[in-house]
């Protein structure tokens, strides 16, 4: 672990989205960092603009323009935090085609600009555990060196593989820049709002028939902490960022007080369409891959390098449930009450049958 090398000027991409805005605002609050520049082609939303207000200098620019290299030189950028990696297509902003354009071409252009920035010393890139692909011949637990066996079906996972490929090339061409790749498990927490958290908020949760995948989450706060420390300290390399342990999908649904509705795999796309119409839920092949095969990663390298013990997957999910409240179709209090009622009923019947009030075993 290497401290005391906080960069003076940090450029954060994707600040119109929650993760980017949050990370940029946090970096701006760190006294070790002089300036934080937020880059995004879109205007910040109401929520993100309050986060950014006054501390982050927002520049409206597209990653795919020549402007980028100029900005890097003009502001003397020392570190780049690349968070403009979309996990799900935004139907209002061009859908999947635009998402791929932003993720893949955007990263390519950003790295090209990084290569030309003379003062740049640090690069932090958001990746995902989806980089491990999906195969039935996969080991149960992925370590950072596990190669994907099959190309994943999901668009996001394919983008992530492309992005990591570009970063590998960048590392070769710019060895003086410390590059950190963070492979995040799906984010969760009481404030997180992702397609997965919306999924667990449905009253009836569609699952794939005959599959009960192991899931892993990372708490948003832990993710933020690790992201922040990747910038202000020196942690070159690729790291899995996830809460240790695992829970199964059925377990997660039950803990949320929801009811799982198993659907045969081919029927899932119809359910996805339905969910998009009525629940505002985007449900893609990325999720389907996850719900068939599950995904668990090893976090030994992260824990050793950052000297950190992130919240376990169970703890992170419990925190998400606290934010959700006791709103399910099948609240735990109801189940507990039913259990007590049945038990009392059986005791009453047995006591009546014996003619004496309880106590048979003497």
């Amino acid at each position, binding site marked *: 672990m290497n401290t005391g090398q906080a960069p003076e000027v940090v450029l954060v991409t994707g600040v119109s989205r929650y993760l980017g805005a949050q990370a940029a605002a946090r970096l701006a609050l760190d006294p070790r960092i002089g300036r934080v520049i937020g880059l995004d082609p879109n205007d910040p939303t109401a929520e993100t603009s309050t986060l950014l207000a006054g501390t982050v200098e927002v520049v409206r620019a597209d990653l795919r323009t020549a402007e980028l290299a100029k900005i890097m030189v003009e502001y003397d950028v020392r570190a780049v935090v690349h968070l403009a990696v979309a996990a799900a297509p935004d139907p209002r902003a061009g859908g999947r085609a635009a998402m791929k354009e932003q993720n893949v071409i955007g990263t390519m252009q950003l790295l090209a600009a990084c290569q030309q920035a003379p003062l740049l010393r640090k690069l932090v890139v958001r990746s995902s555990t989806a980089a491990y692909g999906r195969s039935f011949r996969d080991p149960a637990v992925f370590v950072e060196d596990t190669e994907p066996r099959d190309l994943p079906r999901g668009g996001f996972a394919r983008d992530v593989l492309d992005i990591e490929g570009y970063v590998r090339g960048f590392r070769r061409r710019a060895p003086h820049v410390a590059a950190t790749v963070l492979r995040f498990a799906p984010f969760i927490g009481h404030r997180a709002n992702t397609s997965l958290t919306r999924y667990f908020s449905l009253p009836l949760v569609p699952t794939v028939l005959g599959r009960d995948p192991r899931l892993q989450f990372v708490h948003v706060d832990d993710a933020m902490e690790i992201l922040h420390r990747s910038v202000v300290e020196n942690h070159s390399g690729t790291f899995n960022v996830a809460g240790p342990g695992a*829970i199964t999908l059925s377990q997660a649904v039950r803990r949320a007080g929801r009811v799982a509705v198993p659907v045969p795999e081919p029927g899932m796309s119809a359910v996805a369409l339905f969910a998009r119409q009525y629940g505002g839920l985007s449900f893609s092949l990325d999720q389907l891959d996850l719900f068939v095969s599950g995904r668990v990663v090893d976090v030994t390298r992260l824990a050793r390098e950052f000297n950190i013990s992130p919240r376990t997957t169970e703890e992170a999910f419990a925190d998400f449930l606290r934010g959700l409240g006791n709103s399910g179709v099948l609240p735990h209090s109801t189940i507990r009450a039913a*259990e007590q009622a049945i038990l009392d009923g059986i005791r009453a019947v047995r006591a009546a049958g014996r003619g004496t009030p309880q106590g048979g*075993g003497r």
Partner: protein
Amino acid sequence: MSGVAPGNGAGPRGRDPAGTAGAVTPGDVAPVAGTGDVWDARVAGALAFLRRRLTGQYEVDEFGFDRELTDAVINPLLRPMYRDWFRVEVRGLVHLPATGPGLVVANHSGTVALDALMLALAVHDEHPAHRYLRLLGADLVFRTPFLSEVARKGGATLACNADVERLLDNDELVGVFPEGFKGVGKLYRDRYRLQRFGRGGFVSAALRTGTPIIPAAIVGAEEIYPMIANARPLARLLGMPYFPVTPTFPWLGPLGLVPLPSKWLIEFGEPIDVLPYAEDHDDPVVVYNLADLVREHIQSTLDNLLQVRAAGDYAR
């Protein structure tokens, strides 16, 4: 489980040798205090179990092993088959480590891999430490819906070096069948003849982790579904490694799925210490020779057990 309450008409369903099914854990509804009412405790335990399952209040490990479900559902379902149908008899239990990692290597047979399940139950029920044998399965198991999930919940995982070494590093007892489909899908006329042991991947995993190899010989599984022919075209059509034709299957339909009640003997052999060879874990010749040693050990134990069984030299 002593003293069934008098006047309760001790029910026929009350057999539970490991005493695990209705275990009451902290946080459950307490049985009526001081009565010693066995049935009350059982009902309360069963309801608490149902509640924990319905609310997700149980734990699975990173491989998906659901210990509570294994104790309360999977093992109790297998136990009648183990005890009353196959009348499994176990020898050499002292060779299983009570703690720490171990790699149990066994012969594979029987058309349907019931031998793996019986081996795991033998380790759990008969050994004083009641350890769980973490089985390794082919990718076909994890490709198949339902089966894959039951396998994971029962503690199995994919037979690949990454998973084996991770389990052994976690001090688990791992069960492997190096013959794979070649063993379980062989014809009845080849019974008790060990097939090739692949490339000996299990040996390199043991060498890398310094884990002792415990050879295990299973006699009895060959006769449960005697496979007289393999309908290859049908197998290819269904994407299966083999399609068995037995005297009863597929002729008798679902009835043909009932295994024949053969007498089973399982013997664990003396552990093979691999530490002297640990440095050569990437030397294919060392790995191959060690695999061969294990194979010969199992073959000779099998021959010996067959004589024992032929002589009727067992309890029942």
